[in-house]
C-alpha cells in the first residue's frame, strides 16, 4: 500500500508554473526526504501534501484516498514548521493538546497522549511553560510533540533543523531518527537543503530541481549511481568532478579519450552511442589517486590544500578540465600550492553523462529494469 501517491502534480501561480508534473509513490511508513536547491519547489510540494497550497493539476492520494479537495484540517497530516509555529499564548501542554481538543477527544485521552509524547521527547518538566520560556531545541521538540500526539497518517517536516545551532541540529536529528523507529507505520516526508540530514535520515531521497524530480532513490543509490549531472553534482561533498571527454569506442565497455589525448577503458555500456560523441566524465573526489607521471591520466598545478587530518583535499587546476578538480586523499599528504601533481582515477567508479546530462550507466540499468517489468505487465496494472 502506498502512503502518499502523487500523479502528475502541477502547481502554478498565475501563469507561472513552478511544479511541472511530479510523480511519486511513497510507501507506507517510509521516510522520504525532499532535497534540492532553494526555489526548486520542495517546500511547495510539501505544503501541497499538507493541504496548505491548492493543487493546480494532477491527483494526490493519501493511503489510497484522493485528497485533492480535502482541506488541510481533514487530511490527517501533521506538520512541523521551520519556525516551530507554536501557539505563543498557550503552555506546552495546551500546545500539544490543541489538535485533540479541536477533535473533541476526552480529557483522559488527551492527558495520556500528551504525557506519553512529553516523556518520549523529555518535555515532561516543561509542560506548564509558555513557548517563550523555552530554548530553540525545546521549542522544536514541542512542535514535534504536537505532531506526534495526533497519530497522523503522514508526518511532514519543513526544514525543522535549520533554525538550530550545529550541536542541537545533530542531537535533534538523532531524535528524529529515533522517532522514525518508534512510529514505523507513519509515513514521513522531510524537506531539507542539507545533504547530511537527507543522507542520514532518509529511506529514500527525492532530488528536485526547478519543479521536476531529478531522481528518486535510496541515499547510496543516489551517491553511487546518479541519474544525471544535476544529481551527481548535488549529492556528495565536495561535489563530483566533471571533465569533458570524447567517446573513442562504444560497446559494453567504453573507451574514452581525454582532451590531453590519453585514453581509458571504463566499465560503462555505451552501445547506442555514436563513436566520437562528446561526453562528460564524472568522478568523485575520493576516487582520484595520486600517481606517477607515466601512469597519470590527469596532471596539473595544486591551487589549494585543505588538510583535515584524516584526509587532505587538494584543488588542482588540470589541463584536462576548465574547472578545478578536487581530490580527497586519505591521511596527511605533504603538498603545497604551485606544486605539480599527477592523478589517476578508478575506472570502475567513473560516471559518463551524455550531452543531455543523463548518466549512461543509469540509462542502461533503467532499460534493463524496463525489460524485466515488460515481462510482467499484469502485475503493474494490479498495483495501480
Amino acid at each position, binding site marked *: 500500500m502506498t502512503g502518499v501517491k502523487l500523479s502528475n502534480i502541477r502547481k502554478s501561480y498565475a501563469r507561472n508554473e513552478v511544479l511541472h508534473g511530479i510523480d511519486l509513490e511513497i510507501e507506507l511508513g517510509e521516510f522520504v526526504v525532499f532535497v534540492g536547491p532553494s526555489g526548486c519547489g520542495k517546500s511547495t510540494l510539501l505544503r501541497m501534501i*499538507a*493541504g*496548505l497550497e491548492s493543487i493546480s493539476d494532477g491527483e494526490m492520494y493519501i493511503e489510497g484516498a484522493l485528497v485533492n479537495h480535502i*482541506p*488541510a*484540517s*481533514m*487530511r490527517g*497530516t*501533521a*506538520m512541523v*514548521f*521551520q*519556525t*516551530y*509555529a*507554536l*501557539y*505563543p*499564548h498557550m503552555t506546552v501542554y495546551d500546545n500539544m493538546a*490543541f*489538535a485533540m481538543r*479541536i*477533535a473533541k477527544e476526552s480529557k483522559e485521552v488527551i492527558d495520556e497522549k500528551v504525557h506519553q509524547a512529553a516523556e518520549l521527547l523529555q518535555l515532561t518538566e516543561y509542560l506548564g511553560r*509558555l*513557548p*517563550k*520560556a*523555552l530554548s*530553540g531545541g525545546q*521549542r522544536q521538540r514541542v512542535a514535534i510533540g*504536537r505532531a506526534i500526539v*495526533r497519530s497522523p497518517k503522514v508526518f511532514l517536516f519543513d526544514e525543522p533543523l535549520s*533554525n538550530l545551532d550545529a550541536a542541537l541540529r545533530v542531537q535533534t536529528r538523532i531524535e528524529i531518527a529515533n522517532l522514525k523507529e518508534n512510529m514505523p507505520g507513519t509515513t514521513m516526508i522531510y524537506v531539507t537543503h542539507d545533504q547530511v540530514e537527507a543522507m542520514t535520515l532518509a529511506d529514500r531521497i527525492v532530488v528536485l530541481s526547478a519543479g521536476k524530480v531529478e531522481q528518486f532513490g535510496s541515499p547510496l543509490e543516489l551517491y553511487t549511481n546518479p541519474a544525471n549531472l544535476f544529481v551527481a553534482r548535488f549529492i556528495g561533498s565536495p561535489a563530483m568532478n566533471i571533465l569533458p571527454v570524447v567517446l573513442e569506442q562504444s560497446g559494453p565497455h567504453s573507451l574514452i579519450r581525454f582532451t590531453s589525448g590519453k585514453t581509458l577503458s571504463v566499465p560503462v555500456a555505451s552501445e547506442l552511442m555514436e563513436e566520437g560523441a562528446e561526453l562528460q566524465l564524472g568522478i568523485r573526489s575520493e576516487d582520484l589517486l595520486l600517481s606517477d607521471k607515466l601512469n597519470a591520466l590527469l596532471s596539473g598545478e595544486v591551487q589549494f590544500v585543505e588538510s583535515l587530518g584524516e584526509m587532505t583535499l587538494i584543488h588542482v587546476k588540470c589541463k584536462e578540465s576548465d574547472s578545478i578538480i578536487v581530490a580527497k586523499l586519505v591521511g596527511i599528504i605533504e603538498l603545497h600550492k604551485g606544486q605539480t601533481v599527477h592523478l589517476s582515477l578508478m575506472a570502475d567508479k567513473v560516471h559518463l553523462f551524455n550531452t543531455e546530462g543523463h548518466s549512461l550507466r543509469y540509462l542502461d540499468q533503467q532499460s534493463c529494469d524496463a525489460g524485466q517489468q515488460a515481462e510482467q505487465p499484469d502485475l503493474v496494472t494490479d498495483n495501480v
Partner: protein
Amino acid sequence: MVTVTKPLSSTDSPYQSRGLLSTLRRSPLTLLTHLSVIVIVVMWTLPTAGLLISSLRDKEQLAVSGWWTSLSPSTQRLMVRSVPPDAQLEEGGRYVLRGKVSDDQALQVLAFGWSSREPAAYAVGDVAQMRKGQTLSISSNGEYELSSPEPFSGARGKRLFYTAKIPPRFGLDNYREVLTTGGIGQSFINSLTVTIPATVIPILIAAFAAYALSWMAMPGRGLLIALIVGLLVVPLQMSLIPLLRMYNQIGSTFGVDAKSYLGIWLAHTGFGLPLAIYLLRNYIANLPKEIIESARVDGANDFEIFTRIILPLSFPALASFAIFQFLWVWNDLLVATVFLGTGEQQMVLTARLREMLGSYGGNWEVLTASAFVSMAVPLLVFFSLQRYLVRGLLSGSVK
C-alpha cells in the same frame, strides 16, 4: 605596582568627564526627546492637576484665588452681620453686642471696618469710632464687640467688614453636590449606557471582518479593503443628517423611537468600524502565517482559528482600539446631540456639561467637579488597558 596604578587613577577622571561630555555631544536628539517629553507631560498634567485641585477646594476660596495658591492660606474680604439688636446687653451705661464673625476656629482676622467704603480701615486691636459715639473692635480670633451709648435699634444686625486669613480647605463637598443635585449622576449612567455597547459592538464585528480580510481567500478582497480605507475619510458631519433620516424611516417601519439608545449604538458602530477594521486587519495580517497554518493542519476550521488563536493573540490590538473608541464615544457631543433626546434619561455627560456651562457659568466648583467626573472614566480605561499596548505577546512563538 604603586607607580603604575597611580598615573592610571589620575587619568581616570579626565576619561570620565570626557565620557560625560561625549554623552552630551552624542545625543542632542536624545536631549530633545527628553525635553519634549517633559514639555508634553507638563502640558498634560498641569491643567489636569489644576482641575482636580480646584474641584476639591472650598467654593468660596475657589472663587477668589487660583488653584496654585490653594496650599497657602487665602486672604479674603468678607462681610457679616452682627447679632441682631434683640441680643444687646447693657454694661456700665453702654449697650453692647458681642459675637464672633465666623465659627471657623482657624480663621485669623487681619483688619476690619464698619463701612463698605473702607472695609479694612482699622487694624486688629484698634477701636473704631463710628457715628453717634458707637465703637467697634474685632480681635484676631474673630470676636467682636459693638458698643453704643444709645440702645441699638432695628431688626437686623450691623454690617461688619473684615479681612481675614483663612487656611486652605479641601473636601468632597463639590462632588457630593454635583452628583446628587446637578443631574451628573444620571448623565454618567447615560454615558456609560451609550459608550459600553458602542465600544463592544464594533470590536466584535471588526475582529471577524479583519480575520476574513487577512486570512480567508475570496474574490474582491482587495477591493473591499480599499473601500473600507476609503470610508475612513468620510466626514462625520456630512453623513449625520442622511443617517438620521434613514434611521428614522427604517425605525418607523419597525416602530422604534426616533431618538433611542439603539440609534446611537448603531451610529457609533458605523462611524467606528472603518478604523477598527483597518487597525485590526493590519495587526492580524501580520501575525505569523505559520501559526495559522499550523492550526489549520491541526484540524481547526476558520472559526476555531479565530476564537482560539487570533483573538487571544490580537488582544493588544483589540485593547488599543477599545481605548480609542471608548474615548471617542465618551467625549462625543455631536452624535449624541443628533441621535439622543435632551430628557433626563438620555442626556449624556458632555451634553450635561454644556448645559451646566449655561446655567452654572459662574460656579466654578460645580464645573470643575463635573468636568473631573467626566474625565475619571476615560482615565481609568486608559490606565487599566495601556499595558496591553506595550506588551509583546508574540515573543517566543517564532524565532
